[in-house]
C-alpha cells in the first residue's frame, strides 16, 4: 500500500497544531482572577521604585553597602511563619491600623533612610498592601523608598530560590 507524502505530512501537521492549541488553551492565565486597579494597586507604584529579588540579595550580601531597612507590610501570621532575614513587621498596608503602625516604625528615621517594602502575601497584581504603604511613606517625606517585586508570593519568589529567611518562632 502506498501513502502519498503530502496528505501524510498534512495529517501530521494537523496533529501538531491540535496538540499545540490544546496546550495553549490549558496554560492560559485563568480568566476568573482580575488584577487590582486604582490607587491601591501595585501598578500605581512607579517602576523606577521597584527592586527585583536578585538585586536585593546582592545588596544584602555586599560588604560595606548601605543596608536598607526591610519592612514587611502584609500579613503578620505569614511574617511569623517566614520572613526575609533582617526584616521587621510594620503593619498591613491595607488597614488603617497597619498604616499607623508603619508610621510608628519609621517615626525616628531620617527621611533619606533607604527603605524597602515587601509583602508577598498573594500575587503582585492583587496585593492590597504595598501601594498604600508606599504612598504613606511618600506622604511622610521619605525619599529613598523602594518596593520588592515578588510576582507570585514570598514562597515562590524568595524562599524557593534559597534567599535568606528567618522565622519568628
Amino acid at each position, binding site marked *: 500500500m502506498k*501513502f502519498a507524502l503530502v496528505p*501524510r505530512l498534512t*495529517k*501530521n501537521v494537523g*496533529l*501538531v497544531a491540535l*496538540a499545540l492549541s*490544546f*496546550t495553549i488553551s*490549558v*496554560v492560559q*492565565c*485563568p480568566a*476568573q*482572577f482580575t488584577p*487590582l486597579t486604582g490607587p491601591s494597586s501595585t501598578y500605581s507604584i512607579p517602576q523606577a521604585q521597584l527592586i527585583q529579588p536578585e538585586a536585593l540579595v546582592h545588596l544584602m550580601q555586599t560588604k560595606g553597602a548601605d543596608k536598607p531597612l526591610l519592612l514587611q507590610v502584609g*500579613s*503578620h*501570621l*505569614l511574617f*511569623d*511563619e*517566614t520572613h526575609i532575614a533582617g526584616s521587621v513587621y510594620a503593619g*498591613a498596608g*491595607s488597614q488603617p491600623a497597619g498604616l499607623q503602625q508603619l508610621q510608628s516604625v519609621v517615626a525616628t528615621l531620617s527621611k533619606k533612610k533607604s527603605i524597602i517594602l515587601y509583602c*508577598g*502575601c*498573594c*500575587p503582585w497584581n*492583587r496585593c*492590597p*498592601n504595598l501601594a498604600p504603604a508606599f504612598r504613606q511613606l511618600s506622604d511622610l517625606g521619605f525619599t529613598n523608598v523602594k518596593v520588592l517585586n515578588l510576582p*507570585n*508570593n*514570598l*514562597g*515562590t*519568589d*524568595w*524562599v*524557593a530560590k534559597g534567599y535568606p529567611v528567618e522565622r*519568628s*518562632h
Partner: protein
Amino acid sequence: MPPFALRQSMLTILLVVVFYAAGGERTALAATSLTHKRAPEFVRTDLNNKRLDLKAYRGKVVLLDFWATWCAPCEVEMPIFVAWQKKYGPQGLQVVGISMDDAPALVRKLYSKMRLNYPVAMGDVKLGNLYGGVLGLPMTFLIDRNGVIQAEYQGEPDLNKIEAQVQLLLNSR
C-alpha cells in the same frame, strides 16, 4: 519504520508533551512539596465551635483551602468551592477552609457573607509549617480518599483544572 507506526509514535510523543506542558498537579511551589505524601493530621475547633478533625474525613476527597479575608483571589474561589461542596458533596467531596487571618472577627463576617457551606477553622504558624510552609495565598491541597495529597495549588490556579482533578479523585475508588 512503516508510515503508520511513525504516525502513531509521533502522536504518542505529542500527547506526552502536551500533558507535561499543561502542567502537572502543582503550580510553582515555594515551600516543601507534600504531593504524594500523607496529609498531615490536625484537629481544630471550627467557627461553629465544632471539632474539625482531618482524619475524620478519611474516605472522602478533601479540598483543603488556606485563605484569608485580605486575599482577593481567595474571595473569588469561595463561591466556586461552595458550589462544588453542594454539587460533589453527595459523591464524597469535603471542602475544608483554614483562615490565615490574625483574628477570627473578620473571618466570621466573611463566613456569613459568603454563606460558606463547609467548615472553617483558624490557622496559625504551626499549621502553616505542618503543610510545608503556607507562604502565599490562596493555597489549596487536594487529598484523596486514602488521606494522600494528590495536588497542591498556590496563587491563582485554573479552577477548571482543579475541578477536573476533583472529579478524577471522586471517581477513583
